[in-house]
């Protein structure tokens, strides 16, 4: 049983815009690529060229259809650790390997003390934890803790790898505990929501829902005839008469 910090300095997290995510998997492989050589290295792959390839991934995208107001739609849904304010995966940990950082709220696993008991993965209602069979420890999203403060890389690159990669700009990173941050403002403006809030784990990450397309203005049907021209006339004749008039101005 591991305890949580009473308060964290920041609430770092991701805001994911479901309106523009096209499901391209860029965040998925970019995450894999960074983290297989980063803080959680490696993210092992089992049977990579065989019948049942599987491995540890800290971010996955699911695409599915749903119906809203009688209309079928398709959504692409990226899924990773939500860095809950009250993460059951931490409190259930018997060794203290899982912990929530006081400074920024990031939920991490200490690979040196993780015993691979998997209690955390049972406790997480979001399925966000990944057991690395070859490494024998639990892996999870680190919000790229080894990028976001890293003074050896350019300041503009100090964001999680998934955010850095995303081609449509559907992913944003920031402090959701600060109401004036850009991510908090976009959540407020777009009615961003958390997943399964009713469970009470207070997930930090937010999703922006698909926007409803506003009706567009249309041109009015044209006036049919002018007084000087006989009726009825074909569409071709009307067009030619209009073109002649328009060009004689």
């Amino acid at each position, binding site marked *: 049983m591991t305890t949580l910090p009473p308060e964290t300095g920041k609430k770092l997290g991701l805001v994911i815009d479901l309106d523009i995510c096209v499901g391209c998997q860029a965040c998925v492989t970019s995450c894999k690529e960074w983290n297989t050589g980063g803080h959680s290295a490696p993210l092992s792959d089992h049977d990579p060229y065989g019948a049942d390839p599987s491995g540890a991934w800290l971010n996955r995208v699911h695409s599915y259809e749903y119906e809203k107001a009688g209309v079928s*739609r398709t*959504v692409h849904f990226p899924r990773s650790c939500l860095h809950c304010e009250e993460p059951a995966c931490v409190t259930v940990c018997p060794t203290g390997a899982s*912990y929530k950082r006081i400074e920024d709220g990031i939920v991490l696993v200490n690979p040196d003390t993780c015993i691979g008991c998997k209690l955390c993965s049972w406790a997480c209602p979001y399925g966000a934890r990944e057991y690395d069979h070859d490494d024998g420890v639990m892996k999870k999203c680190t919000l790229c803790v080894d990028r976001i403060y890293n003074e050896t890389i350019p300041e503009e690159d100090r964001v999680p790898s998934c955010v850095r990669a995303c081609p*449509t700009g559907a992913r944003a990173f920031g402090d959701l505990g600060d109401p004036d941050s850009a991510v908090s403002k976009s959540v407020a403006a777009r009615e961003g929501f958390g997943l399964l809030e009713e469970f009470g784990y207070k997930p930090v990450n937010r999703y922006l829902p698909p926007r409803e397309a506003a009706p567009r203005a*249309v041109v009015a049907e044209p006036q049919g005839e002018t007084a000087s021209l006989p009726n009825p006339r074909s569409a071709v004749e009307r*067009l030619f008469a209009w073109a002649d008039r328009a060009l004689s101005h």
Partner: protein
Amino acid sequence: MSAEPVVNLNQPVADRVAKTTCYMCACRCGIDVHITDGKVRYIDGNRDHPVNRGVICGKGSAGIMQHYSPARLRAPMRRVGPRGSGEFEEISWDEALALATDWLGEVRRSDPRRLAFFTGRDQSQSLTGFWAMQYGTPNFAAHGGFCSVNMAAGGLYTFGGAFWEFGDPDWDLTKYFMLFGVAEDHASNPIKIGIGKLKSRGAKVVSINPVRTGYNAVADEWVGIRPGTDGLFVGALIHELFRTRQVDLDYLIRYTNAPWLVIEAPGAADDGLFARDEAGAPLVWDKASGGLASGLGPDVQPVLTGRRTLADGRMARPVFELMAERYLDPTYSPEAVAEGTGVPAEQIRRLAAEIAHVAFREEIVLDQPWTDWTGRRHEKMIGRPVSMHAMRGISAHSNGFQTCRMIHILQILLGSIDCPGGFRYKPPYPRQAPPWLLPHGASRDVRPDEPLGGPHLGFPLGPQHLLLNEDDSPARIDKGFSWDAPMSAHGLMHMVINNAATKDPYGIDVLFMYMANMAWNSSMNVGGTIEALTRKDENGDYVIPKIIYSDSYYSETVPYADLILPDTTYLERWDCISLLDRPISEADMAADSIRWPVVEPDRDVRGFQEVLIDLGGRLGLPAFTNADGSPKYPGGYPDYIVNHQRKPGIGPLAGWRGADGTKTGNGAPNPQQLDRYIENGSFFAHHLKPEQAYFKHANRDYLTWAVEMGFRTVPLPTIFQLYSEPVQAFRLAAEGHGTRQPPETHRARIARYFDPLPFWYPPFEGSLVDEALYPLHAITQRPMHMYHSWGSQNAWLRQITAANRLYIHHDLGAQTGVTDDDWVWLASHLGRVKCQVRLMEGVNPDTVWTWNAIGKRRGAWNLSDDAPEMKEGFLLNHLISELLPKGGGGYRYSNSDPITGQAAWFDLRVNIAPADGAGATEPMFEPLGHAQLPPAPGKLAYGSQFRKAKT
């Protein structure tokens, strides 16, 4: 609570960062490759790069697994077992090059036609095409004929540009975007970046696509059209614009041939051609003078209507009238097309009204003066912010050329080509419409031991430019530029193997291919193609006697070649993405780029272009050899990139030319040029001035600069060809005019489909099979994380997609009595495939589809025989015939567009029936031998080596 462990927050990413160009697909994004101890740690996007501006896609981030794939070829190989056995022996490069020189040299000395050299996903066609020209064979093309030639030809003949590499929507200003038939493909990151911008700004995105996935899933409006009917849909939009009189008349007069007079003399040899003056200029009726005048004159005030009398007393009418009559015909009314397209008339009418509203009531005015080609100054740039993009779903049909032209006509009627908010050209485009470039390779052009007189691929203006033998039979092995496909600007790679095996039009001695999986997912009729590759004559010899193939990986095609030239991975090679070929320009800039070896190969492999230049020297090809017979580019590909000059001062790269590196576009070779590229992130970009940025087709400052850069020969405007005279020239031949006419088998076909004004006709396959027997359409797309790549062997990407399903509408599932994962037989007139279904809602009810190229053949790619790709993965290629069913006259045409020869993949018609039991997909081919490959690892822990320095 225990103390938090110490996390090293400042671990350096790598020892060094090397900036090069991605090759995981055709986008050519800039990448930063982070390298530690000679191993690739991480790849991300280059923020300065014009194509991707820092982002990277799902493929690009999986590049590490591509680079270290166990399917990489390791050394040159010579086949020792029968073709397809996979029995090879490794040989040295000296032996391999000597053998290739022997085979290729003999053909060149006797009959250069007997070499067919076709390259697949080739990004160096300015070199490969030039090499083929120097060799002297007429038989060269890349994969454009089975990819997107309908889009390229349709665009270039119409407005001197085209979608994708030739131009893009004005992502920053457009307010309304229509995306036709883009199956999550061309282009990758630029479209994603663009859609993100549009959606964030509230611009409307409309997708016209039978399938609602990917980009189409986030569109504000999805039009789930029936495949192959986009021409009807677009025709109805045009109908509505004409009916509601919402077209940009000033734009039509300024920039198009709408006012040009078309001769009306049925039966005459010049019926349907433009009336011209003595100097050959097209005539218009000039309002100012009240008479005929040259349509090219700067001061003319043409009218758009009225039948006029020519000097010889014959009649002529302006293009505008003919066009209006075509599309105002009731056959293009929304009501008339609703059933065929599956799009309700009301929706079509509303979409047309929305487009018109944005174009004409929400115009953009930029406070940017510019000068047109006549010297007239304009104080503002007026934009019609409707933009469009179209690709595979339009091009891969036998009516794709005309449909593509129709989309461009829609854009032009709205006045939205190269205006703010519309579609923007990317330099070197616009060219002339069509480009002033004729194909070469007619029998009179081909002589032993001599280069061809010009490039293979071009834009015929009429029958006089076809590539034919003395007896009017096709001069090219793929029948490109023959009566089968007169305007086949990219050739017909999909026909080469079949034609060579049947010796129709003739046999060959050497088939030389690069980077195209023709024995599997890049061919129609896979079984037939494999049979053709292994067919023997009465002496027991292969009908295609010698096959040379270059690839990086052990693909399904490798075992069918006799000599393997192993290529490098994309991180180990030099490359040149040239303005002479397919550059990386954006609308505001001319740009080109390179690849360079950021890591050294650990195998005995060489970049294909390196090998080609070496072979050029060994064969004594003039441009690759000095006068004393020594090789001209002893430094290989980088030597060629820097020092080759196509014309004095013009070389493969435009940046940092001149001895001191200060010249752009035109200048002497600079020995330091590649260093400058590498320092700059492996690309060069010349930014246009604001006054050059729009209306490039008629913008004096742009046109003058384009001449300086060698893009154009004269600073004259590109005039949009709503009515295409070259197309009419072919039709006149079919109607019995001229000295070169189609054979009787082809006459009616040419007369029907070569309509100078685009029209819609049903795709061929549906017209030739019993539609009641094959009621469904079948199409494919590539998943975004594998588009245009070799991804399905990639250890990471195959964890996302290792097997494909046949996606069908819920209603079709209910009718057929099948549900998710049930096995079905999918049958066409050619054959049948056993596969599993997945039900969905977002698909046209009469359409089934699947992910392409997921299915693999046992033995290939170093995947295990029980991999999902082998057992469940399937290809629709087995159902698609390379030849159409016999039509009237008994001649079997290729399954292609009759104008361009574009492979008609998406014309496929099928039926579906439940299949018994489970088991595996069918057809199931014998496993390929692969003894030369090392065993694939049973697990990966890539990255553990980078953990060492952590505290």
